[in-house]
């Protein structure tokens, strides 16, 4: 491979990975935007979504389905995982966060951490269930193979640069979702209610907006995005495990902050940036320094733009 091809390849890899991170980060940033909670459980909700996808796949034996049926299967997974993760996230809000609305932000954070532990443990149990796809449930903690529903051939034929259908699949799922999300927040009644609650929940309540319901819906949408992301992640990486929520969550959180927490385009930009920085650092520095470089760049950017790349510097009213 020539140098330019290597660079191009890394860019493609970085963007694909970045898209997935961005999709998870959107869930973070929405929840943060509305109640200023770093939802630590988000990554684990995402992880449980991936387990559901694998369970569905095994239950219906999708691996054996013909090609275009598999496509329908993927759509089924996307829809049910989104619904599942959305509901799960909504119930977490209902059970663990809503009672703490009036308490300090830090109590809320601890509650989220607790939920994250619980979800991790549920993932361990799920992985240990005696099911064909889970290898008889012998090794609950082992990473699970997620069968390749998306083929691996190179779309560019014999070119040294590889673009595999999975890369395209990431785009096909992610971009419409992002557009739909931006439309939802900017153009609909619900979106306006969300923005109102985010700005000032007391005032919004006085204006007759059902604040708790709007927050619940936001959690649902954030979780649903995580559900979509979990299927995309599983299709792209072909491995899931009960501890994958931590790293995915951390990357997404970093992306959300990098882009300016609370900003939807910021989360996407942050995700893409992190994906590309990771790829370039793997190529041109050393993999073992990649994390250090990602966080180093995060600190650098925050020094110059303390509210992230696209975050608005909300001036404090004095």
């Amino acid at each position, binding site marked *: 491979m020539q140098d330019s091809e*290597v660079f191009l390849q890394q860019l493609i890899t970085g963007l694909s990975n970045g898209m997935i991170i961005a999709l998870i980060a959107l869930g973070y940033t929405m929840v943060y935007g509305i109640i200023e909670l770093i939802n630590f459980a988000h990554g684990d909700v995402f992880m449980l979504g991936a387990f559901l996808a694998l369970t569905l796949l095994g239950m219906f034996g999708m691996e054996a389905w013909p090609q275009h049926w598999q496509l329908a299967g993927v759509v089924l997974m996307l829809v049910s995982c989104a619904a599942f993760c959305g509901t799960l996230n909504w119930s977490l809000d209902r059970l663990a966060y809503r009672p703490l609305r009036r308490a300090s932000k830090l109590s809320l954070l601890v509650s989220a951490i607790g939920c994250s532990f619980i979800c991790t443990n549920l993932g361990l149990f799920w992985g240990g269930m005696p099911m064909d796809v889970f290898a008889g449930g012998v*090794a609950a903690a082992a990473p699970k193979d997620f*069968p390749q529903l998306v083929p691996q051939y190179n779309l560019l034929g014999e070119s040294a640069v590889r673009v595999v259908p999975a890369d395209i699949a990431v785009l096909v799922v992610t971009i419409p979702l992002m557009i739909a999300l931006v439309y939802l927040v900017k153009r609909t009644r619900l979106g306006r209610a969300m923005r109102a609650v985010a700005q000032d929940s007391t005032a919004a309540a006085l204006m007759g907006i059902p604040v708790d319901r709007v927050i619940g819906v936001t959690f649902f949408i954030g979780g649903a995005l995580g559900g979509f992301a979990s299927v995309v992640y599983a299709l792209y*990486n072909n*491995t899931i495990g009960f*501890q994958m929520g*931590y790293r995915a969550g951390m990357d997404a959180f970093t992306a959300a902050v990098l882009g300016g927490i609370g900003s939807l385009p910021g989360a996407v930009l942050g995700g893409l940036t992190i994906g590309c920085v990771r790829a370039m650092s793997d190529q041109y520095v*050393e*993999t073992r320094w990649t*994390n250090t470089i990602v966080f180093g760049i995060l600190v650098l950017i925050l020094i110059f733009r303390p509210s992230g790349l696209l975050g608005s510097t909300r001036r404090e009213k004095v």
Partner: protein
Amino acid sequence: MTHHALCVLSLALTSSLGCTAWAQSTESKGTLTILSSLPRTGSANAQTTTIVNGIKLAIAEAGGQVDGWTIAYQDLDDASPQRGNWDPAVEAQNANAATKDATCIAYIGTFNSGAAKVAMPILNRAGIVMVSPANTYPGLTKPGKGEPNEPMVYRPTGTVSYFRIVPTDDLQGVQAADWAKQLGAKKVFVLHDRELYGKGIADVFCDHAKTIGVEIIGFDGTDSKAANYRSLVTKIKAVSPDLVYFGGTTQTNAGQIAKDLRAGGYEGMYMVPDGCFEQAFIEAAGDSNLNGNTYITFGGLPADQLTGRGAAFRDAYHAKYGSDPEAYAAYGYEAARVVLQAIAEAKTRDRAGVLAAVAATKNFDGVLGRWSFDANGDTSSRVLSGQTVKDGKFVFVKVLGG
């Protein structure tokens, strides 16, 4: 507020005291306890479960008794939930618990060499024999291989009380490099997971490969929590090696690396050490990604090559747990059997007696072959085997070294 503090305090204390009292109420005079200390919470749970299975099988085969003495077994966790990994404080706590438990005569563990460093001096002072089914860091037993103060620093009393039934990194890494050369690899890209085990074995592999004329064209540490390694694979592909060696385990994502190597269009060979010699590795990697060009080294003979003692073990394990024993199951089983045999042969049924008997183990007829402990506490077994993967199964290729 004072009341709250006190309430909580007394609650915590009473409940914990209650629990302990209850835990130990079944003790009797004729009981000898074997403790194992392995990370049972978190990511290593998969391997340690098979180790514990192996230990339990060995004890069950002995009927839970040796020469009239009841053998009790306790499965301690050296991981804590908040760390999700082995925790030095918990390991120290386990080792101290062992020293205080008067019936404890043997300690099977640890899984991580780092944990062994914590437990070894404590157990050595108490004179409890420690048999590890998984530690491969050479410095724990071999002078001159690790830091200058090793291994004496682990033996404050001067006697050897730590034994291991697995070949150390410096054996396996060397054999792996030799094998790679035999397989025709001229240019090798070496990866490691930056853990003690993986990095150690990859370092040895590298050093030996260089001396036998295999070119190392890349050396890098991976991030075991990464979602995928596609960009790393691009980097590897750009320098087109014949073989990629990964020092690491299933837990540190050996399967994902295999997957991404294939997904990235790499068509060369892939070699991993015994940390991946388990069905979970094939499951994690997906067998189509491993077929034919993946090579695994292992510090013993695989289950299907075993004869005699080993074959019996394989059948018994299969009957009890419904699957073939994996690498760590064999290691755990072997460790427990060494201890049980030592108890049987010990002159006195106390710590010193069992320790002496373990140290005197010679020509042990085990599932890993016939071997003895040397003066450092290492197995004399030099038998390593190499396998490959075909259709979702490990297939024995050859005996390495020997």
